[in-house]
């Protein structure tokens, strides 16, 4: 297992807690892991493309 510390301020934590309160996930940690599982596969890095200023000159 890999231990990750996520720094969040009180406002950010409030949003997590309100989302948990809606029943989306049982707690903060589960919510963060849910976000990773749902978003992660859709948001993987594509192969790097040359920047416009780097190519074609």
């Amino acid at each position, binding site marked *: 297992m*890999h231990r990750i*510390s996520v720094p*969040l301020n009180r406002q950010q934590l*409030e949003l997590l807690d309100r989302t948990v309160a809606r029943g989306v996930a049982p707690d903060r940690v589960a919510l*963060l892991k*849910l*976000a990773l599982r749902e978003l992660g596969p859709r948001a993987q*890095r*594509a192969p790097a493309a040359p920047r416009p200023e780097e190519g074609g000159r």
Partner: protein
Amino acid sequence: MSGRRLLAEWVLQPGTGKALEVLAGQVLRIEQVEGGQCVDFNAFNLHDYKEYMHCGRTRTVHGFHPTTGDFLWSAPPRERALFYILADSVGRNDVLFPRCSAYVYESAYGFHAHTNCHDIQAEAQREYGLTPDDVHDSFNLFMFTAVQAGGTVRISRQDTQPGDHVELLALADTLAVPNICGADVMRTSNFFLKPVKVQVLQAAAEDLARVPPVPVLASQRTPADFRNAKIKADRALVRDAGYQPQFLHTPLAVEEVVVELDDEEIALLAGYEHRPLYRDDLGAVLRDVFFSWWEQRFLASPNGAPALQAAAPAPSIPHDRT
């Protein structure tokens, strides 16, 4: 439209503007007489001039060219919809450009004096006791503008025709100030200034029925919520020796939430598209993942109003006083 009642009518002449009381439930109709004329527009809460139309908020919500179905918003912290755009026969209005000013004509064209929207607005607003410093960024009706590649902006000639019009339904009591744009040496009004007809009408029931619901939120504050609600009446800025800062939620404490990830999850995190922004700070990467996910799942309107949907968790903590 049947059911409307004409309350007042003016034909604004080149070089002029007019401050008009347009009350909630009334329609301000601005109509081309000859065609090809840009009209600049300011608006204030009639009962509190410190609340005024805010082009920045409006363009954030509706884009650079507000049109039929969009709102004109007031500035933070009020952030109310002051007007609803009922009709727009052209669909090319602008909240990108500022009003033209005397400086522009002197610096770019060498005029010592020239009609300009700032000074026309100021003169029209003077009828209600406002000063040149009260003129704000204008909603530019019938102004054909565009953002070009590289981020520069451009004004084009317009092709509006006689009878083309914009209709604004007041959602609050307002002082509405349209003026004939003073730019006769620019493309804005096709290099000539023309009159424009302005009408104030009592809205018909079907006009009112077209306005979608707008949110009423605790964050829409009024002077009753201000720590300092007194309007400053002298010009110099002098420090308040007794001032104690009361910034919201400060100090903004940070707490670490510890998450254990398995190999598959850590691989997802490592491959996240925005990871390079955070180098090796995987906690920051996971934070980005969470808020990006939350936006996608719950944020109905990324730029805020008008249609906040109930899917987002409701705020639980009332705002502090401003």
